[in-house]
C-alpha cells in the first residue's frame, strides 16, 4: 500500500472525507499548547505558530487545508503564507447561512484536492467512534471520567490521531473514575492554549463538563458527501451567533451547568462575542484571555479560584 499522505488541518474539516481519500489528517493545533515558540509576526498565537512551523518545515506535512470562511481570518492570511512557502494548500469555506448545497460543493472541491474517494467505509467507522465519543462526554458529565482525560480524547476527534486503530485504542485506555462534581463548568469559546488547563481547573474544584469546540468535533458525521454536508452545515462556530447561542442554551441546561468559563484568545475576533454571551447566557461567567502557549499562568489560576469562590457564594 502506498504511503499515506499527511494532511494538515487548521480547524474542523470532515475527517471522514480525508480518511475516505486514504489520507491521514493532522490537526496542526495539536502541537501548539506544548510549543515553546515565540512567533515573529503574530496576532493570534495559534495561527502564528503553525504558520511559522509549516513555513520553516519544522512540521512536515504533504499539504494543508485551511478553514477560512465562517471561521477565522487570521488563519486565512497565515494559510496563504504557508502556501507561498511552497506547501500545497486548500481553502475550505463553511456557509454562514448553513446552506447544505454550498457545503456540498465545498466538499467536492476538497475531494478533488485530496484525490479520490477510495475507502468510503471509513465514514461509517468514524461514525461509530463518534458515537462512543458522545457516550464518553455523557459519562464525564455524570462524574465517571476525569475532565482532562475526556478533553484530550474529544479534542482529538478533529483528526482521530491520524489513524483510526490508534485512536480507538486511546479511547479504550480511558479508565472510569469517580469524580466529585462540586462546580459543573462549561468551557465555551476556542479551547485554551494551555496544555494543563482542565487539570488545573479540576485542582481548583472546577469540573469542566462541556467543551464547546471539541464537542463540535464529535457531533457531526455522515456516510457520504450528501449526508456529511447536511450535518456539518450546522457547525455552530461557522453560523450566526443566535444559532450558536440557542445550541449552547440547550447543552448547558442538559448538563446542569453551575457556571461558564469563556476562554478568549488574544487578537481573536471571538473576544467580541463576550458581551453577547454574557447577555444571552444566564449563568455566572468568567472571561479569561490567553496569548502564548504553555502552562496555565498564575493570573489565570487566580481568576479560576476566585470564580470557584463566587460559585460557592451563588
Amino acid at each position, binding site marked *: 500500500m502506498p504511503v499515506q499522505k499527511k494532511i494538515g488541518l487548521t480547524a474542523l474539516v470532515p475527517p471522514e472525507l480525508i480518511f475516505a481519500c486514504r489520507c491521514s489528517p493532522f490537526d496542526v493545533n495539536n502541537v501548539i499548547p506544548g510549543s515553546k515558540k515565540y512567533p515573529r509576526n503574530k496576532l493570534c498565537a495559534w495561527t502564528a505558530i503553525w504558520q511559522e512551523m509549516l513555513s520553516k518545515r519544522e512540521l512536515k506535512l504533504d499539504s494543508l487545508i485551511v478553514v477560512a470562511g465562517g471561521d477565522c481570518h487570521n488563519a486565512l492570511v497565515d494559510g496563504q503564507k504557508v502556501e507561498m512557502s511552497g506547501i500545497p494548500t486548500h481553502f475550505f469555506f463553511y456557509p454562514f447561512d448553513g446552506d447544505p448545497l454550498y457545503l456540498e460543493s465545498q466538499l467536492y472541491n476538497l475531494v478533488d484536492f485530496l484525490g479520490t474517494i477510495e475507502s468510503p467505509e471509513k465514514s461509517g467507522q468514524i461514525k461509530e467512534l463518534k458515537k462512543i465519543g458522545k457516550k464518553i462526554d455523557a459519562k464525564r458529565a455524570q462524574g465517571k471520567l476525569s475532565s482532562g482525560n475526556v478533553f484530550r480524547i474529544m479534542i482529538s476527534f478533529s483528526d482521530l490521531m491520524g489513524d483510526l486503530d490508534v485512536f480507538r485504542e486511546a479511547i479504550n485506555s480511558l479508565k472510569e473514575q469517580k469524580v466529585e462534581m462540586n462546580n459543573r463548568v462549561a468551557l465555551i469559546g476556542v479551547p485554551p492554549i494551555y496544555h494543563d488547563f482542565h487539570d488545573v481547573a479540576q485542582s481548583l474544584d472546577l469540573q469542566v463538563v462541556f467543551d464547546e469546540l471539541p464537542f463540535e468535533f464529535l457531533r457531526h458525521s455522515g456516510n457520504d458527501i450528501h449526508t456529511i454536508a447536511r450535518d456539518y452545515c450546522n457547525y455552530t462556530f461557522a453560523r450566526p451567533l443566535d444559532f450558536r447561542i440557542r445550541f449552547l442554551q440547550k447543552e448547558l441546561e442538559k448538563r446542569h451547568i453551575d457556571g461558564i468559563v469563556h476562554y478568549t484568545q488574544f487578537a481573536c475576533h471571538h473576544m467580541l462575542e463576550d458581551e453577547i454571551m454574557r447577555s444571552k447566557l444566564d449563568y455566572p461567567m468568567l*472571561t479569561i484571555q490567553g496569548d502564548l502557549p504553555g502552562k496555565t499562568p498564575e493570573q489565570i489560576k487566580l*481568576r479560576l479560584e*476566585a470564580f470557584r469562590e463566587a460559585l460557592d457564594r451563588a
Partner: protein
Amino acid sequence: MIGLDVGSTTAKKVSIEDGEIKYQITGTHNWKDLITGIDGNDIISTGYFRNSVPHCASVTEITAAIYGVRYYFPDVDVIVDIGGQDTKVIDVKKNNFIINDKCSAGTGAFLEFVANYFKIELKELGSFHSRAKRIPAINNTCAVFALSEMISQLVAGFTPEEVIAGMHYAFARRISFMIPGARTLVLIGGTVKNKGMLSALEDILQTEIQVPDEPQIVNALGALKYYY
C-alpha cells in the same frame, strides 16, 4: 484566629479582640514577624502569597475584598481595587469580577511612573493635583503615549500640577471603562490615598466614592470574616 494578607509589597495581620479590630502592617519580606507564636491552624491567608505562608484556609484577594468591604459598607455594590500591579473591579451584587493585569496604564504602576518622571514621591501626586488651576486634556490611554502627551502639555505652558491633574483624569477614564453603574462604590488598594485621582474618578463616574477607614487592611480583615 487571624487574617493574614501577604501581597507583593506589604503584609498585614488582622485579628478581632473583644469586638475591636487590631492590625499590624509590615513589608512583605518581614511577613514572618507578623506570625511569631501563631499556629498555622489559626491563620486564614489571602494575597498573592496566600499559599506560600502557613494557613488553615486561604481565600483569593477578590473574595477577601468583598467580605472586608462589607464590614464597613454592608450595602456595597461595586468594589474597585487599584493596586500596584493590577486593578480589580468586583461587582458584588452580580457576583462578577474583572481584573486588568495586562495594561499598566490602568494600574498603580502608571502613577508611579508619572511620579518618577516628575521626580516626586507617589504620595505627592494628590497635593500637586489640588493646586492645579486648569486641567489639560490627556486623551491617550496607553501609558507610554500618555507620557509624551503630558510632555507636550508642559511644553504648551501647563504647570506640572495641571499636567498631573490631567493625567489623573486620563487614568480615571481608563479605569471607568471597567466599572459598572453602582449606588455604593467603594475604592480600596494603594491608590485610595491619592485624593486627586479619587476626585477625578468621582467626577467622571458622577458618583460619590466611599473609602473604608483602614483601606490597607480590608483584605486581611475579609479573609478573617470569610470564615467567621
